[in-house]
């Protein structure tokens, strides 16, 4: 086994033995499941909100609202169901009087005749003699605006229907008109069968996913590499390592080891996701595989992914060599995180506008290239752009690794706090260590 591989294996085993590694493996799928199921579960388990409507308009609007408000089932979109209850106060003509009578119920100071609490009350009243209707919604939970939105939507339907009926439209014809929706189909010359299907959109989603995946790997790897180098530097193990292996071997071994850790974690997550997808949506899973294999897209992603990881990992391991403590490393991580947030800003945009001129230009900026070129995969960027950005990325990463080797040695053997002067001197090979 080569020295590089020995260092990589040691690095890998050191992380695999930690509790955090296994927590990472287990918690993410559990968190994902929770994120998917929790909103619906909460909505289903939450009792319907009791709503009383007091209609002061004299037009019988409350009765017309009832079907619409009771129609929606809870849970599908995470909204709370509504249970209409008879108003505990008689409808008068005075809004202020009605509100004053309702307030103790909404505040929970008084209970409904059935012994339950009133969650919200809506007072319908006309603002003038015309058709305008105002709804004053009194609710126990001011943060929950769902009831207000449902009432507004339902009342708008009622008023629209009323106006159209007054204009002479038959209610049955009106219902038929409301059901009218066009059958829209999308076609594209780049779609396999002409008609755009999910599988034709998959490269875009995969590209976005790869960009986010790279971002996650870089973020995870950054912390691991920084901590690993700092630990070895403060305990002077790095001195022993550097007398046993070359700087490129030490750096590459650590980068490879951490990459293997990240790959293991992501591999487990992706395998679980793929297994679930294959079990529940075999067609989509098949399309996904086909999309990845189509025109060697998997190699396209792999190329940018590997180079992107190498570029950022080299940067982080070099910075780690210049830090004496984790606190120093954390302060250095701040600017790095700002740098890393830039690709995320453009990543989502590249799905909707993959060929936007700004994104095309930014694709040539090496720190952004791996993210943006991956996300632009769906639009099939011109070959010259792929070759050009790829060549530039290879050149910049290669140069970075060359310079980083010198800097890493200088940083690893220095025993002072982070010194920008030493850092920059080491980059141009003028550091005295």
């Amino acid at each position, binding site marked *: 086994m080569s*020295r590089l591989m*020995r260092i990589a294996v040691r690095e890998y085993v050191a992380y695999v033995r930690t509790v955090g590694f296994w927590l990472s493996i287990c918690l993410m799928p559990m968190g994902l499941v929770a994120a998917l199921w929790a909103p619906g579960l909460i909505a289903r388990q939450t009792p319907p909100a009791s709503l009383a409507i007091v209609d002061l308009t004299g037009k019988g609007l409350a009765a017309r609202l009832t079907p619409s408000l009771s129609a929606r089932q809870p849970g599908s979109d995470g909204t709370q169901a509504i249970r209409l209850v008879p108003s505990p106060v008689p409808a008068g003509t005075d809004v202020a009087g009605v509100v004053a009578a309702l307030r103790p119920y909404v505040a929970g100071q008084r209970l409904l005749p059935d012994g339950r609490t009133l969650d919200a009350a809506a007072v319908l009243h006309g603002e003038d003699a015309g058709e305008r209707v105002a709804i004053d919604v009194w609710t126990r939970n001011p943060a929950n605006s769902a009831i207000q939105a449902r009432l507004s939507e339902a009342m708008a339907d009622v008023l629209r229907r009323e106006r159209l009926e007054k204009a002479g439209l038959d209610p049955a014809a009106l219902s038929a008109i409301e059901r009218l929706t066009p059958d829209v189909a999308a076609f594209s010359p780049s779609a396999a069968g002409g008609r755009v299907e999910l599988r034709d959109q998959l490269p875009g989603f995969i590209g976005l996913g790869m960009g986010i995946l790279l971002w996650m790997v870089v973020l995870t790897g950054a912390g691991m590499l920084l901590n690993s180098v700092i630990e070895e530097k403060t*305990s002077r193990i790095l001195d022993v*390592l550097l*007398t*046993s*292996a070359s700087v490129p071997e030490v750096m590459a071994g650590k980068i490879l080891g951490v990459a293997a850790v990240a790959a293991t974690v992501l591999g487990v997550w992706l395998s679980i996701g793929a297994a679930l997808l294959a079990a529940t949506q075999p067609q989509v899973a098949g399309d996904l595989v086909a999309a990845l294999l189509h025109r060697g897209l998997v190699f396209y992603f792999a190329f940018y992914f590997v180079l992107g990881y190498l570029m950022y990992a080299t940067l982080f391991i070099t910075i780690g060599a210049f830090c004496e403590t984790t606190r120093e490393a954390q302060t250095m991580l701040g600017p790095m995180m700002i740098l890393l947030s830039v690709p995320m800003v453009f990543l989502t945009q590249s799905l909707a506008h993959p060929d936007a001129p700004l994104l095309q230009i930014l694709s040539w900026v090496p720190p952004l290239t791996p993210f943006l070129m991956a996300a632009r995969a769906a639009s099939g960027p011109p070959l010259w752009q792929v070759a050009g950005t790829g060549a530039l990325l290879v050149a910049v990463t290669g140069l970075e690794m060359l310079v980083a080797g010198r800097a890493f040695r200088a940083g690893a053997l220095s025993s002072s706090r982070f010194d920008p002067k030493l850092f920059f001197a080491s980059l141009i090979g003028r550091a005295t260590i």
Partner: protein
Amino acid sequence: MQTALKLEGIGKRYGDFQAVRDLSFEVAQGRICGFLGPNGAGKTSTIRMILGLVAPSEGRIDVLGAPDGRAVRSRIGFLPEERGLYRRMTPVEAIGFLAGLKGLSTGEARRRARTLLEAHGLGHAMNRQIRSLSKGMAQKVQLLSALAHEPELVILDEPFSGLDPVNQQELEGIIRALAARGATVLFSTHVMQHAERLCEQVVLLSGGRKVFDGAVEQARAAAPRRLVLEGAISPEAASALPGLVDVVCAPLAAGGVQVTGVLAPGAPAQAVLRAAFEQGLDITRFELKEPQLHDAFIVLTGQEIAA
């Protein structure tokens, strides 16, 4: 005898600070060489240059035939001054890993690790995490990790620091055993007694300069021999003794005087004793104190060294 290590006019500057200047010495194969000097003398800087961790500002190095340690790293064993091991590794894993980096196969590295640990009384702890070992045990593990690949040149930077007397004695045994199997040992220390017991050659450094290079006996010869006389001796009579200079008299609690003096170069101690008897001095104790390496260091460098 072949030369394992040769330094010619080595210097090292850190900005305006000259850590090592014009340092030349060589160590023959199979020798134990003590690299001595107070803290800040330039010992660690020199060791780092030999290992290739830092480049010399001037001069030439020859390590086992290579210009620096990097080209022959698998033939060198190194114990740094500041100790450190992966705390969550077991001794077997740590020694196996570092020996593996020096070119041993994984199986062989682990086999040797177990053998060494057993041989040095750490067999019971070989599968415990290093963080649970005592400082002395961890230091021993680190030393063994530098030796497991049976290097031709062993460089130990302050190997005795932090060890209790028992472990210091064991370390001396290990160093002698290394030389006995033909390895060259260069160890730095600021404690002269270890060098006196172990070394065939010592290189003394002070302020980045070499002040002595040679055998321990030669170094001792640079320091004066002292004579101690006790009895009913007057200061005048003591000062009149031939070959005795820098005489200091101190009264003894039990009565009488203790006279301490430096023997002039070439003056025999017996001549002083004979003269004392001839003068009828009442001598109750006579002791010739041969100089120690510590004394030689003070003479050679003009400074006291921290114990």
